Each structure stands twice: as structure tokens, then as C-alpha cells.
């Protein structure tokens, strides 16, 4: 087992950041800690790295207990959201830092740093100062710096959080490829579900100091354990008494088994997709909604949304006011609504 956290609890004053959290990360895997901000994911990462101390519980890295051991002797690589570049040192010296601390020979340092700069595609920037690099380049430098000391585990705290969308996407792909090359046990924290789904081997959803669910990205997307996980990993809509993803709803022009009738209220085209807002014609539900006059804040249980491709929408010839029938598609993840 690469990393094991047992019954970790951490409080900041009265606020419980982590509540008896247990986590096991297999070696060599790329694991994402996903959750809303303030949910405790960064705190858990910092406890694993030794930058924060747990109030109770133990952390094991490669089977050895590290609780109480300061970060400088844990041999973990840490990458921060805002790069934490050593501003007074060149890119080369930044990457060489850990090796210089370990008193490695000049030749060995040169060889290793050159190798790493090539790995992160910064070889021609060796003599630049961090301030002369873009955000994405700085983060790649920070990664090379962390990898230089051959850490047992690599911990990344919102590594792409400070970058713009395009660079984020590039770096995300690049991190995935890099991990396939170096195979170091890696844990990264993110609040971006797309990032987590795309990059990770294994996904840990954390909310309010507790782990909600652990599994592969597809497992979690298709079989969310609860409403929170389902809602956090992607869009959710209601269909009768169930929660379904809007792209998992089939729209039919004629009645069929298991389908419910609905009226199209609004059609919005967003790039390659069409979003349809519909009103369910369930007599009972519609009746109560009309009688009580639904409040502004409450989502109307008889309203639902469907996501279609443009082709699908054109084929159905959807128009506002149309009467259609809806049912969850075959492989849809469906959760009973509370």
C-alpha cells in the first residue's frame, strides 16, 4: 500500500476539518481527492505531507508510520497551487535544490537536473528566473523540483488551480502522460470534477470532513453512492421520483413503457448541445404544484431538463410546446430522490 491514513481527525478551533477519515492509496496510482472547498481535502493532503499535524490518527507511507516525522524526513514531493517557486534561484537551481541539500556530487546533480528539465520540457529555460516563466511553466518547474529527490509519494495541492482553462487542460493531459512514465504514487487535490474524472486512476470524494465515496472515475460517475457524489460529479435532474443525469434521458415522440409525458418549455442551444427544459404532466404532482404555487427558491418537482446533441434535437424536431415522453436511457445512473 502506498499511503494509508487511519482515523485522521483534525480540528481548527471548533471547525472539524477531518472527522475520523480512513484512506488507502495503492502504490503507483494517480489518485484524486475531489470535493468542494473547505471540505478537508487539502488538509488531508497536508497531513500526509507533514505540513499539518493531525489531532489524532496515523499516516503510513510504504507501510512505515510517518506521523510525527517532520516533512523534511518524509521524502514526499509537494507541489503547491501557487507554485512556491524559489524566486531568487534560477530554474536550474530550483530543480537542483533538493539534491544540493542532500549533498549530491556536482556531476550527478547536473545529470539529474538536465534529465528532469527535459522531462518537463524546460531544458532551454534552465538559466531563467521563475519570474520570467508563465504560470504553466512555473508549475512544471515545481513538479521537476519535487521529482528531483525521487520522492516515495508526490502530493499536489490544486496544482492547476491558478492557471487559465486552456493551460489547465494541457497540463492535465501532460500530468497524466508524465505519471505513466514515472509511476510515482501520486495524490492530487482538486475541486474540478472534470479534472478528477479525466486524470485519475482512482477518485476520492471528500465533503464536510468525511469521505463520501472511493472508486474509479467511471464507477463513481455511473454508480454514485449518494446524491452529493452524483451532484458533484456532473449535472443532475429529476425525473419523477428519481435523480438522473440530463444526458441519460431519452426523449420519445410517442408513449412507451416506463415513459412519462412532458411538455417542452424552453430550448437552449449551447455549442454542440441542446438543453431542453420540460414540464412533467404527472396529474398528481402537477395538481399540487398548481395548488400551492411553487415558491421561487424551491425547485419544482415537475420540472426537468434534458441534454441532447444537436442531431438528436433536429431528428425529434423539438419545438417549444411539443408534447413528448421521457424515460431514463438504458445505462443511466438513477438514484431515488429524497
Amino acid at each position, binding site marked *: 500500500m502506498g499511503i494509508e491514513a487511519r482515523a485522521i481527525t483534525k480540528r481548527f478551533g471548533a471547525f472539524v476539518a477531518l472527522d475520523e477519515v480512513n484512506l488507502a492509496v495503492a502504490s503507483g496510482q494517480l489518485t484524486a481527492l475531489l470535493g468542494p472547498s473547505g471540505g478537508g481535502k487539502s488538509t488531508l493532503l497536508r497531513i500526509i505531507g507533514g505540513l499539518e499535524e493531525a489531532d489524532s490518527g496515523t499516516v503510513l507511507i510504504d507501510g512505515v508510520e510517518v506521523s510525527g516525522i517532520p516533512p*523534511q524526513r518524509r521524502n514526499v514531493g509537494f507541489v503547491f497551487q501557487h507554485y512556491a517557486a524559489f524566486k531568487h534561484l534560477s530554474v536550474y537551481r530550483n530543480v537542483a535544490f533538493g539534491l544540493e541539500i542532500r549533498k549530491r556530487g556536482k556531476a550527478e546533480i547536473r545529470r539529474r537536473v538536465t534529465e528532469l528539465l527535459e522531462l518537463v520540457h524546460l531544458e532551454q529555460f534552465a538559466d531563467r528566473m521563475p519570474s520570467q516563466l508563465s504560470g504553466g511553466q512555473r508549475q512544471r518547474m515545481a513538479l521537476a523540483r519535487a521529482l528531483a529527490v525521487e520522492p516515495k509519494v508526490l502530493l499536489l495541492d490544486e496544482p492547476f488551480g491558478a492557471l487559465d482553462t486552456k493551460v489547465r487542460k494541457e497540463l492535465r493531459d501532460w500530468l497524466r502522460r508524465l505519471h505513466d512514465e514515472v509511476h510515482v504514487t501520486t495524490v492530487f487535490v482538486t475541486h474540478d470534477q472534470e479534472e478528477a474524472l479525466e486524470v485519475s486512476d482512482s477518485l476520492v470524494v471528500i465533503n464536510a470532513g468525511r469521505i463520501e465515496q472511493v472508486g474509479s472515475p467511471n464507477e463513481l460517475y455511473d454508480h454514485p453512492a449518494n446524491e452529493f457524489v452524483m451532484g458533484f460529479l456532473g449535472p443532475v435532474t429529476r425525473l419523477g421520483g428519481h435523480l438522473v443525469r440530463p444526458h441519460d434521458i431519452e426523449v420519445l415522440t410517442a408513449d412507451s413503457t416506463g415513459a412519462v409525458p412532458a411538455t417542452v418549455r424552453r430550448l437552449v442551444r449551447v455549442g454542440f448541445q441542446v438543453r431542453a427544459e420540460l414540464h412533467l404532466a404527472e396529474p398528481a404532482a402537477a395538481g399540487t404544484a398548481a395548488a400551492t404555487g411553487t415558491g421561487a427558491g424551491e425547485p419544482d418537482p415537475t420540472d426537468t431538463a434534458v441534454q441532447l446533441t444537436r442531431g438528436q434535437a433536429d431528428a425529434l424536431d423539438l419545438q417549444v410546446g411539443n408534447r413528448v415522453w421521457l424515460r431514463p436511457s438504458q445505462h443511466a445512473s438513477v438514484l431515488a430522490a429524497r
Partner: protein
Amino acid sequence: MAEPSLLTQPPARAAAPDAPRARRHRNPRRVGAGRWALRLAALGYVGVLVALPVGLVLWRTVDQGGRAFLDAISGPEAIAAFRLTAIVAGSAVLVNTVFGVGTALLLARYRFRGRALLDLAVDLPISVSPIIVGLALVLAFGWTTGWFGPALQNAGLQVIFATPGMVLATAFVSLPLVVREVLPVLTETGLEQDQAARSLGANARQRFVRITLPTIRWALAYGVVLSIARTLGEFGAVRVVSGNVGGQTQTVTLLVDERAEQFEPGAYQLSVVLIAVAALCIVVISLLRPHGKD
């Protein structure tokens, strides 16, 4: 409220290129009376308060000639005073640099009970009159009546009316200078670089030497130069604790005072030396300043 302001932003941005033009139109009119009055007032203020008195001291010195200048600064009393000033100022700056960096690190990186109080206490020495500082030190360290004085005296260390007391007084009055220069840089830099260095295996000493010190170097240099300028000129507190014995516990400022009081020659010449060192400090500071910003 956020949404309306977002909506109005594009027109505001579109109008922005016009703004400097409008200001340029208005400029020629304002250079008239108002600007000149302001410039004259500023120049007059600095001139009457600073340039004129300092200029007169310089003029006196030049007027009395090179011979008088050499005599004034090379007599045994003057040599002793220069030496003592160098020792006192040097020690005080050293003490304040070490403790100043330590205090700044403490204030920037740790949250503890009494932190706000310490933050306030650091500024106290600059707002309290030096004469009070001197009296307070006598109360604490005076060799017959002071709190620690007799004990230290028995241990063979005289504080008041000796160099240690003068160093204490000088360090006291210049205490905030290093802290106040270094603290904002440390606060702005934050802890991440330090934590990154930790995760890369650096121990506390290595982190301080390799990361913290290079980060604060310009602010530290600026604070040290400011401290040098301040400590060289210290008079009030030192006067109270020194005893002012010529050739023994008399710094340059005390000697200037004595010569001026007794109508002895050489006060202006010594003043010019102090002014020259202060001017040099200001030049060094202005050279350091732009570096300190990046």
C-alpha cells in the same frame, strides 16, 4: 450588486482611452498658479527646515578652513568619540539585526497569545522620547538603585555610565527599524517557499540561509542602513545613560553638544562628518530601494 457593475464595465473600459486625453487638456491650465504655489511651498518648507540649517553648518565649517577641520576631528577626544560611536552604533545595529529578523519571523509566521501586544511593543521605542528611554534604563540597570544593576555590578558588569548601557539605549531607540522593513516582505512571501524547501529535505538552518535570507536581503539591507543612520545620530538616551565623560563615555554627538555648549571650536566640523555619513546612508538607501521592490 456584482451583476450591474459587471454590466457597466464594458462602456467604462471603452471610455478609458479618452480619459488621459481629457486630463492632458486640463493640464496646461493647472500648471499655472496652483502648481507653482505648491512647488514653492514644498521647496520653501524643506528649504527653511532642512537645507538652510544644514547649509549653515556646512558654511561655518568651510569658512573656518581645512586646518580647523583637521584639528577638530583628529584630537584625542574626537578620536575616542569616533571609536566609541562606531562601537556603540555597530553593536546596536548588530543586536537589532539579529533580534529584528527573529522578531519579524515570529510575527510573520506564528500565531500566539500576546502576538498583537508584541507587534505594538515593537513600535513603542520610536514613539517614546529618547530621554525617557534613558531614564528607564537607569531605573532598570543603575548600579546602586536599579533592579538588575547591583547584581550585574557584583558580576563585574557595569551597564550604566559604560558602553553596555549606551549600546542598550541605542539599540532600544532603533529597535523597530529592521523589524518594520523585514516583516512586510515576510508576510507577503508567505510560508509556501519555506514549506516547499521543507518537503525537499531542508532543515531549519538550511531553509533560513538558502530561502529566507535571500528573500529578505534587500529589505534587511535597507533596515540595517536606516539603523546605522539612526544609531550614529542618537543623543538623548545615550546622554542620560553615558555619564558623558570626555574620552571615555562620550560619543560624537555628545562631544558636539559639549563643544557647542562650552563655545569650544570643532562642533561644526564634527557635525559635518555626521551629516556626511548620514548623506551616504541616504544614497545607499535610495540605491537599495528599487531592488527592494521586486
